[in-house]
């Protein structure tokens, strides 16, 4: 009999604010360690936290997007534990009254909703840099406080997930939803970090800490399920413990065993007040909720008259991609062509380069120019498909790219000579074509195009081939 798997997630999402949660340091990753810090986020004795109200707004927005009940009066608590990444040895978080409770998240592939237990705001601890290995093998660790005090929300699901694939879908869906409404930027480094709780029915609960990347969520859980099933098959009891996921080996290893639930001795944070979410704040968030993926898909279809499958792909690529599409649509009229190129070659090139559109050096203006060159016949579609690779990779001006390409390749070539050479090299295809095989013609056109590096006009090649073969 298959053991039932029970999975619950704690998803930490970095909020998209300008400054940190309790001080005026910038809320962005800074490379040089310990340079984006101040006495407050380093917990100097004598400092006090100042609440960034934008973070509350974004947390409330996230809670609304997840259909949570909103706690209109909320407060902060101190969660006390001794760990080198916490400068104060307590974390300011929400305990008794989180911003949102009892929400839900629709998983399309799984075809059902899972329940969200709570959404609360908290400060990020510092980053530990393990030297000479990972957390389990390093000889020592350094502390980088740049991340200390960055604003997070923690989204806790009920243990409603049944497979690693569902867990992966849940995290990806959260990233998509929260990305579109501007709560977070899922493309930023470690903007989403997951703790996964997993048990086999009747077994003890194991927590896998700090997983980044959707695929890793699935891989970590797959390994862990296999490990637990193996132990069970050998009649070895599964220990309640916290484990670490090794991204390279794709395995989990034990960090510490938990004899009982940890007691953090929560008290109310006495340096902060009780805060209120007003009805006017909630109504001011309504426009952002219009950007929820389902609503945005409908809007794309009706506003730009594009097919649903295109709209869906554009939205599922995330907010940055959808924004890029819409900004281009503002200045390029053939929206169907735009959509087709976007979900086709543009996406392919971005994926090939493993970059988000916001990281690529192309702009809606240069992309629109590129498309209009194709539309006007200035370059062929085939050449376009070739040029877009370099265009996306370098962000170079598309018109210059095309000119350079033509100069380097075909301008000086005589198309007649290329056709002659192709015919000589492919006698079988020529023969087939003479017998009326249209596929053979396509094959020959392709060969000619290849030789011209896709710079020649396929229609012209067809005419010339026809004329030449008919001789």
């Amino acid at each position, binding site marked *: 009999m298959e053991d039932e798997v029970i999975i619950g997630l704690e998803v930490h999402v970095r909020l998209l604010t300008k400054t940190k949660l309790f001080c005026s340091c910038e809320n962005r990753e800074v490379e040089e360690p310990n340079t984006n810090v101040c006495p407050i986020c380093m917990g100097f*004795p004598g400092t006090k936290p100042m609440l960034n109200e934008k973070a509350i707004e974004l947390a409330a927005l996230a809670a609304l997007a997840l259909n949570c009940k909103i706690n209109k009066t909320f407060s902060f608590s101190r969660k006390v534990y001794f760990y080198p990444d916490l400068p104060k040895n307590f974390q300011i978080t929400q305990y008794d009254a989180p911003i949102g409770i009892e929400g839900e998240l629709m998983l399309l592939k799984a075809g059902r909703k899972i329940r969200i237990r709570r959404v609360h705001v908290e400060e990020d601890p510092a980053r530990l840099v393990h030297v000479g290995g990972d957390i389990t093998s390093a000889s020592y660790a350094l502390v980088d406080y740049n991340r200390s005090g960055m604003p997070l929300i923690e989204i806790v699901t009920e243990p409603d997930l049944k497979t690693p694939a569902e867990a992966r879908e849940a995290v990806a869906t959260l990233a998509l939803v929260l990305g579109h409404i501007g709560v977070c930027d899922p493309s930023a480094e470690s903007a989403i970090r997951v703790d996964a709780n997993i048990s086999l029915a009747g077994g003890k609960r194991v927590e896998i800490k700090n997983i980044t990347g959707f695929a890793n969520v699935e891989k970590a859980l797959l390994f862990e399920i296999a490990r637990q099933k193996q132990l069970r098959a050998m009649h070895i009891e599964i220990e309640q413990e916290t484990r670490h996921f090794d991204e390279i080996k794709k395995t989990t290893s034990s960090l510490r065993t938990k004899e009982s639930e940890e007691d953090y001795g929560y008290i109310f944070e006495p340096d902060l007040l009780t805060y209120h979410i007003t009805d006017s704040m909630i109504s001011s968030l309504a426009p952002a909720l219009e950007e929820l993926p389902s609503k945005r898909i409908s809007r794309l279809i009706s506003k730009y008259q594009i097919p649903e499958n295109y709209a869906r792909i554009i939205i599922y690529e995330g907010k940055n991609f959808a924004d890029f599409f819409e900004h281009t649509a503002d200045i390029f009229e053939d929206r169907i062509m735009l959509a087709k190129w976007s979900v086709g070659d543009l996406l392919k090139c971005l994926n090939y380069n493993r970059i988000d559109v916001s990281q690529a050096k192309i702009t809606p203006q240069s992309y629109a120019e590129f498309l209009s060159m194709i539309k006007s016949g200035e370059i062929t579609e085939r050449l376009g498909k070739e040029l877009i690779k370099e265009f996306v990779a370098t962000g170079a001006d598309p018109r210059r790219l095309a000119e350079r390409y033509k100069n380097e390749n075909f301008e000086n070539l005589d198309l007649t000579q290329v056709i002659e050479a192709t015919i000589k090299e492919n006698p079988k295809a020529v023969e087939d074509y003479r017998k009326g095989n249209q596929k053979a013609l396509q094959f020959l056109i392709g060969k000619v195009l290849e030789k011209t590096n896709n710079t020649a006009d396929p229609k012209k090649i067809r005419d010339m081939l026809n004329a030449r073969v008919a001789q």
Partner: protein
Amino acid sequence: MQAAYAPFISVAESIRFEITPQSLLPGVPVAVKDNICTKGMRTTAGSKILENYVPPFDATVVEKAKKEGAGIVGKTAMDEFGFGTFSTNCAFGVPKNPLDPERSCGGSSGGSAGAVAAFKLPIVSIAESTGGSITCPAAFTGTVGITPTYGLVSRWGLVDYANSLDKIGTIGKSVYDAALLLSVIAGYDEKDATSLRTQNTDYTAFAKPDGKKLRVGLPKEYFSSAVDSGIVKEVEMLADRLNSLGFELEQVSLPSTELAIPTYYIISMSEASTNLAKFSGLRYGLQLEFDEKQNIEEYFTKVRTEGFGEEAKRRIILGTFTRMAGYKDRYYLKALKIRKRIINEFKQAFAKVDVLLAPAMPILPPKFSEIEKLEPAQVYMMDILTVAPNMAGMPTVALPIGRINGLPVSVQVIADHLQEGKAIQMASIIEGLNGR
């Protein structure tokens, strides 16, 4: 003075006054309790674990005092993190009472009061009270201490004891001096979320021995047998005198007073135990040799064992216990409820009277030899008259009204939230009666 009475932990090497014709404190020496941050000047909070902490910023109160032309002359001795009643829990020497060096200055702001009492100069002190740490040393040294409404004075730069109770206040030689310094340091500060949005007020305007006849309440629980009978008699004589001068007197009751001490200690220790967590030796606290065989918890334990004094350790252990999951309902959360009840009782009293008048401390300043014999619980009982107004966040002025065997007897005048003016006015009237 430092040699005789040791009010300071550190003294300034030199002072630059920034004085303009408008300065409110031109050239005035100000002593600052050593749990209040001073930029570039060591701030220890009386603890060995912070012996090398030099803050890179000034507390808001220090900044404000300097801006008005004052100079910070030194950082005053105190019980470690404010944990004490006699300033005997200080890691850097115990301040002595200038009225009798064999006796305590009181605590925890003992050095702040001691410095004011010791110098025949117009010196004032910035002090701090969590459960009575301004009223107590003011009473024991015969000085005037003002504990303002919670939130009136910014706590930015205060090394926390119990954040929901901590109040920075003033100690001076007269009601006027203490009121003047309060006028300078009070006011809203965006760097402290709990600071109140108030108008700037000149409290010296209330420091006059005349004005309208206030209604005076005498809370009967503050005149109990737990208070030295000589002190009770002095305060009752004062009340009679006020009555004969036409002040309306009324006996009032604050029935939850007896719950105030356990409630106060539960809340303050719960908060304190979290505040002290940061002193673990990683970022803050002693830097000891790290033994490769130790794990990080063992290192933290070693630093905390060596760095904290006995009373700090006691409060960390008790405060951790009272907030643990299984006990939180019975202690921490219950204490928060009783605190609300105590506030309501004060509010009811202030619906009938303008100010409350009561003894400041239940005993006269004790000798160090007597203090040594006290058990911790007996020491905690010394706060019986001060913790309730402190927990309610009510403004209080403590001032001397007479002497018994050469030792000062003091009263406290308590007013409703943000009614510092009334407390200062009543205190000035009393001060005037004693022919100052």
